[in-house]
């Protein structure tokens, strides 16, 4: 189904508000919406709510044979197929541009920044490795799917526990969850995406745009950073041209946001660990 454009009134109102230094949901320009993380009963299931945007991530694992040229490398796969549940613009089997962009960015942020130690997933070199699969389900689309999906994916990976394995010679025994405590994955760092939207030729910059803001924006950019202030990915796919110092300004904002979000993720994980 095609999506209706926002009305002229909505657009004018939103832009007038931005020029007055306000956003229509009452946030400041550099504020994220309220982030809520809830965990399922089993390991690796996380539901993220970023305002009205809602994403579910589920991590699962299986043992497979590695590629012959990389005998000690495990696999990390992402599935970010969007269903019409999030928005009717998404159709089954026909990815939209937005969907492709989100899936590419998640891949870049997580896999290519080597957030997960894939060598640590090896059981028997050349024979058996773990394949970790992250299914990301978009339930409700109210803008900024990238940040929500990124938070969901990394939190799910941190929350996940894989079955313990003992290797004697070439024989590997996989213990069930009852036999032995499952082990966490080794996550090197926590990449977090922070998305910006630009209005008025880049004069106004906002963080965490809602769906309406995304419809009206003139350009966007996504920083992927970790808490050590390392840039993992920077994506600016089209939109208006930006001054270099504005981009640097954005990076400073992103650093603060990443620290806040990382702290919140860790607090949520600790609270959940205590409950178990």
């Amino acid at each position, binding site marked *: 189904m095609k999506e209706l454009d926002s009305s002229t009134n909505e657009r004018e109102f939103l832009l007038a508000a931005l020029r007055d230094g306000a956003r229509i949901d009452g946030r400041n320009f550099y504020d994220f919406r309220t982030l809520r993380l809830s965990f399922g009963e089993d390991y690796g299931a996380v539901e993220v709510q970023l305002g009205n945007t809602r994403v579910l991530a589920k991590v699962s694992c299986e043992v497979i044979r590695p590629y012959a040229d990389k005998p000690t490398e495990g696999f990390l796969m992402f599935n970010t197929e969007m269903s019409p549940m999030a928005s009717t613009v998404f159709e089954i089997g026909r990815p939209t541009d937005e969907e492709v962009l989100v899936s590419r960015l998640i891949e870049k942020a997580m896999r290519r920044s080597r957030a997960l130690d894939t060598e640590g997933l090896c059981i028997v070199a050349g024979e058996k490795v773990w394949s970790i699969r992250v299914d990301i389900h978009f*339930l*409700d689309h109210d803008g900024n799917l990238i940040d929500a999906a990124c938070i969901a994916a990394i939190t799910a990976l941190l929350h996940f526990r894989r079955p313990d394995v003992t290797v004697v010679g070439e024989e590997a025994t996989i213990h069930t969850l009852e036999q032995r405590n499952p082990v966490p994955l080794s996550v090197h760092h926590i990449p977090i995406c922070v998305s910006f939207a630009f209005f008025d030729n880049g004069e106004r910059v906002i963080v965490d745009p809602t769906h309406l803001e995304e419809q009206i924006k003139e350009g966007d950019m996504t920083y992927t950073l970790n808490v050590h202030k390392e840039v993992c990915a920077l994506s600016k796919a089209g939109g208006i041209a930006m001054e270099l110092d504005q981009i640097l300004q954005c990076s400073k904002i992103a650093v603060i946001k990443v620290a806040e979000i990382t702290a919140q993720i860790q607090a949520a994980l600790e609270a959940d660990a205590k409950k178990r």
Partner: protein
Amino acid sequence: MSRLDRTRTSPHQLRPFFSSQNLLNRSDGSAQFDFGGSSVLCSVTGPAEVKLRDEKLDKATLEVVVRPLVGLPGVKDKALERNIRETLEPLVLSGLHPRTLVQIVVQTMKDDGSIASTAFNAAIMALLDAGIPLSSILGSVTCTIDSQTNDILLDPTTEELAQAKSTHVFVFDNKASIHAEDKSSMDHDQASSTQESSSAAVLFSDSTGLFTEGEYLECAHVCFKAAQAVHGFIRTAVEKKLLKEYQQTSA
């Protein structure tokens, strides 16, 4: 006798239900339905624009999309899509909205057995939330026959499904349970089990495994009784929701 999930004492006990409606903002109606550790989220969009290819001149087109929790949709999910669509088609008064689309998306959130039944119940609650005209309400319950004890276990968990000799999914409409309720309130003795079963309107039944005719009828009877609890639950949920909406609008 205790069940494998250790929280239930009787083989005919269902896990605790939970449901909430109107969770999503971008769809016209949505509902989550839980049977214990199984949870399904369902969204409904409609009546909306329909693709020319799917357009029906005299009624609305029903489209069901089933999304598994892990991996890409497979044969099982496609089969469930078809089952849900064909069960709901006679319930939805689609003649009222010709040349439109009613799209139902079913997303598994947690899987601990009886997913098909959970999905059916979630779908009907989402349709109610979206305000799609319906002729009646369905209620679904799954049961298995245990391979060792030959007991009928209602609302099985994944563990119990693995030990099952046969699995049966039933969907009943609520006309029969209203009927049975009236009967039992009028005269307790007359509402015998055979009459109840004969007045039960089975909308959908799916069985796998080996079982006898007697076992099947026994399962149908047990599930019918349990489905009345589901109907009652859905009814209470809708009543509560309407009351809340009424209070909000009148305040």
